[in-house]
């Protein structure tokens, strides 16, 4: 199991002994090169073992009908696991749920995060206290906040029912949030937004702080009001931060896992499954390791394609 990591390392060591003139020229002799490997090899070996090797293995496992029993034969099945996944209504459903989660949570996190960052930008006594408060949900563990929101959305007299039924009269009777697909997804999305706002706020705030004061002052002298300065000075200056946040939030949205696992468990009847909870069920409940790997790999490939399109699109609009 350790051989795959040994391969790149021995390769690197071998080329180290063939001293190339430019390393000598840079004043770094053979001892320096040796020292460099002592710095890099322990960390890189571990990194290769638990990250790079499993990444390759995910692909290889997904092409097999993997048997968990040691010594059992795990035949190659080609793309069968992928064909099965894209004909599996539960997997397709889980993808739809992940798309819904992303479409609901990403814009809300960006808009509210940007709103708060704009309020906190510039001189304001006590701004650090607000920043610390808004960031609190981000540092709290997913396990704790998932349980907290399960309680808030609990079927009896939870806070959510108190607001939706007793205060706003949106329904006649208490709602069983986790007994339906969309009410369950709503609760999961609510947690996603609440937990993520502080993160986007911090990034936007850092980007806004970097905007030169002189630009604001010049715009103010030209008679631009607060909103106009935000629209024409701040917003263009933080476009790079905006696109980074959007890309990272989309990746995070498709990879939603712990909140779904703990709040709805994918239920009722697989209706709120997302790709990662379904993968987890397939692998560790039903021991379908090959099929689970195919789901993992499909999701990652899909997310990378979406992120690449986003990246390409921002590059294009930034240039024009």
């Amino acid at each position: 199991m350790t051989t795959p990591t040994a391969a790149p390392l021995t390769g690197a060591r071998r080329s180290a002994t063939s001293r190339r003139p430019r390393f000598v020229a840079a004043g770094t002799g053979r001892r320096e090169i040796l020292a460099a490997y002592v710095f890099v090899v322990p960390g890189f070996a571990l990194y290769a073992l638990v990250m790079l090797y499993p990444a390759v293995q995910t692909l290889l496992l997904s092409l097999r009908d993997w048997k968990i029993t040691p010594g059992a034969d795990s035949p190659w099945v080609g793309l069968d696991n992928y064909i099965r996944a894209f004909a599996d209504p539960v997997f397709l459903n889980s993808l739809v749920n992940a798309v819904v989660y992303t479409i609901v949570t990403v814009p809300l996190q960006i808009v509210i995060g940007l709103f708060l960052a704009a309020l906190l930008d510039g001189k304001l006594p006590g701004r650090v206290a607000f920043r610390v408060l808004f960031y609190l949900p981000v540092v709290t563990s997913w396990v704790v906040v998932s349980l907290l929101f399960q309680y808030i959305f609990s079927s009896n007299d939870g806070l959510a029912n108190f607001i939706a039924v007793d205060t706003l009269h949106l329904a006649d009777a208490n709602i069983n949030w986790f007994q339906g697909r969309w009410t369950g997804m709503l609760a999961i999305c609510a947690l996603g937004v609440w937990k993520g706002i502080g993160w986007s706020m911090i990034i936007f705030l850092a980007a806004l702080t970097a905007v030169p004061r002189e630009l604001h002052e010049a715009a103010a002298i030209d008679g631009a009001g607060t909103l106009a300065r935000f629209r024409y000075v701040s917003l263009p200056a933080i476009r790079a931060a905006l696109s980074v946040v959007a890309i990272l939030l989309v990746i995070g949205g498709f990879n939603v896992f712990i909140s779904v696992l703990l709040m709805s468990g994918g239920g009722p009847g697989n209706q709120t499954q997302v790709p990662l909870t379904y993968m987890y069920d397939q692998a560790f409940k039903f021991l379908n390791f090959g099929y689970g790997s195919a789901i993992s790999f499909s999701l990652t490939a899909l997310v990378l394609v979406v992120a690449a399109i986003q990246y390409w699109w921002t590059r294009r609009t930034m240039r024009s």
Partner: protein
Amino acid sequence: MVTSPLKRRLGYAIRYALLGVTAVLLVYPFIYMLSTSFKPRSIVLSDPLQVMPSDPTLENYAEVLGLHSFLRYFINSAAVAIVSTVLIVALASMMAYAFSRLQFPGKRILFTAIVVGLTIPTMMLIIPQFLLARDLHLLNSLQGLVPFYVGTALGFNTFLLSGFFESIPRELDEAMLIDGAGPWRRYWNLAIPLSKPALATCVIFAFLGTWDEFAWALTVLNDTDVRTLPIAIALFQGQHSTSWGLVFAASLLAIIPVLIVYIVFQRFFVAGLTSGAIKS
């Protein structure tokens, strides 16, 4: 900027009002949790807007702290988090130093492998990682968690630190080089002392990441003795599904170390987040 004091005060007032309303909305779930943890078992889920329990009690905390297992899980989590954090910071800073200051064949390939790894979501690797842990006999033990926590965190921290090391003026290195200092001395006496803010950021993220880690621990740990706190709390809720006061008392006790680290070091959060996010 030339603004009249009155206008400035009005601006402050509007901003405080908007910030205050949002702060209440965002913090309310925490207050709700805190208040529930002080309510007696029987009247949980009474009135969600009643912040101060009419009959506050410490019985939930007493019960959680009285559980022998809770203390054990707390120590388990602390041990794993501390050992992992030390290893992450040590190995990542060494790698980062070599990538930013030393010349060696294969440097570009290895660094590219680190950057590419940043795009891989860890959950995608959980199945082969599980099989690897099984083959290396690392399942179901606290020591077995460490190599995986360290290995998965190395990429991000190496990337973050090498960016920081790059910003240290090269002239300082050259001055030490002229004095005959080898790479170890330049790393230990120059790069490390000059990088305290960046190292603090790494310590915070590494500690919080391992303290809160859930998915991997859930997958590889079986025995009750070796559970970490997040696992214990999640299972606790399963066993005491109606005793929310108890669940939240346990949760809040688990949050305390996080809160301490967060409030003491909060300025490093901004630095770490922005350097990590903006550069990628």
